[in-house]
C-alpha cells in the first residue's frame, strides 16, 4: 500500500487545490499566474497572518467544493478573481469589527453591527501604507502614477486621460507598462 505523503498533505493545501483546478481544466497554467498576481494584490493591507496563498486556496476551495457556483457566462479566472475580492472584503470587515470589539469589549454586539461608515484608524493606516507601497512600485513612471491617482479618485479612463493630458496611445502604453510591472511583482516568490 502506498504511504501517504504527510508533508504534502499537511503543508501544501494551495498546491493541491491549484493542481486539482488545473487537472479539472478550470484554469490554465497562465491563469494560475494571473490569479497568483491578483491574490498578491488583494492580500495587500490584510493582517500579516493572511497571505496571498490563504486567499487563493480559499477561492479555489469555494469553487472546487461547489460552495460558489460559477455562472456560465463568467470566465473561471474572472469568477475566481471575484471570489478573491469578496474574501478580501470579508477580511477587512473582520479586522474592523475585531478592532471595534477590542476597543469596547463588546465582541458580540460589534459583530452584529452593520459595517461602520467610519473605518477603524488602524485599518485606514494600513490602507494608506498599501497605497503608498503600490505607488512606490511605479515610482519611476510619472504617467502611471497619474493613472493610479485617477483610479484612486474613482475617475473613468477618459477622465484620467483628460486630467493627465494623455492621448489614447500614451494611456494604453502606460497601462501596458503598469501591467508588466504588476506581473513582475506577482511572479516573484517573495512573501509580502
Amino acid at each position, binding site marked *: 500500500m502506498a504511504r501517504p505523503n504527510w508533508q*504534502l498533505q499537511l*503543508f*501544501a493545501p*494551495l*498546491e493541491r487545490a*491549484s*493542481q486539482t483546478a*488545473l487537472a479539472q481544466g478550470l484554469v490554465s*497554467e*497562465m491563469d*494560475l*499566474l*494571473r490569479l*497568483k*498576481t*491578483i491574490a498578491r*494584490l*488583494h492580500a*495587500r*493591507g490584510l493582517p500579516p497572518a493572511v497571505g496571498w*496563498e490563504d486567499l487563493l486556496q480559499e477561492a479555489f476551495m469555494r469553487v472546487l467544493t461547489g460552495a460558489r457556483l460559477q455562472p456560465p457566462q463568467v470566465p473561471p*479566472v*474572472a469568477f475566481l*478573481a471575484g471570489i*478573491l*475580492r469578496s474574501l*478580501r*472584503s470579508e477580511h*477587512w470587515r473582520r479586522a474592523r469589527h475585531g478592532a471595534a470589539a477590542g476597543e469596547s469589549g463588546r465582541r458580540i454586539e460589534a459583530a452584529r453591527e452593520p459595517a461602520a461608515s*467610519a*473605518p477603524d484608524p488602524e*485599518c*485606514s*493606516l494600513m*490602507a*494608506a501604507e*498599501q*497605497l503608498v507601497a*503600490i505607488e512606490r512600485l511605479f515610482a519611476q513612471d510619472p504617467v502611471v502614477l497619474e493613472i*493610479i491617482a485617477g*483610479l*484612486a*479618485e*474613482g475617475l473613468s479612463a477618459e477622465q484620467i486621460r483628460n486630467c493627465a493630458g494623455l492621448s489614447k496611445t500614451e494611456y494604453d502604453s502606460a*497601462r*501596458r507598462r*503598469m*501591467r*508588466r510591472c*504588476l*506581473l*513582475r511583482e*506577482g*511572479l*516573484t*516568490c*517573495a*512573501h509580502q
Partner: protein
Amino acid sequence: MRPPVNREWPETRLARVVQALEGEILEATDEEILDAARDLGMDLSMRGSAAFLGLKYPLIRRRADFFGDRPGPGDSLGQLARDALEAKEPRGKD
C-alpha cells in the same frame, strides 16, 4: 481659496485601485506574462519554474518571511565573525 478637503477613506481609495489593477491583470495576455517572466529571468516552459512556486510546488520559506528583516542571534554572531575577520585582514589590502 483652500482646496476642498478629501473626505474619502484610504480603504475606499485602496479598494478602487486594487480593483482596477485586478482588471488590468485579467486583461493581460499570455505574451505579457511571458515577457514579465523573461524580465525576471524565468523560463515558464521549464519544469519547476520559480513562477509556479506556491502553486505547483511548495513555497520555500525563508527566515525573513516570518521575522522580517530583524537580525536574529545567528545573524549577529555571523556579523561579529565577519567584523573580526575584516579587522584582521582589511579588504582591498594585498
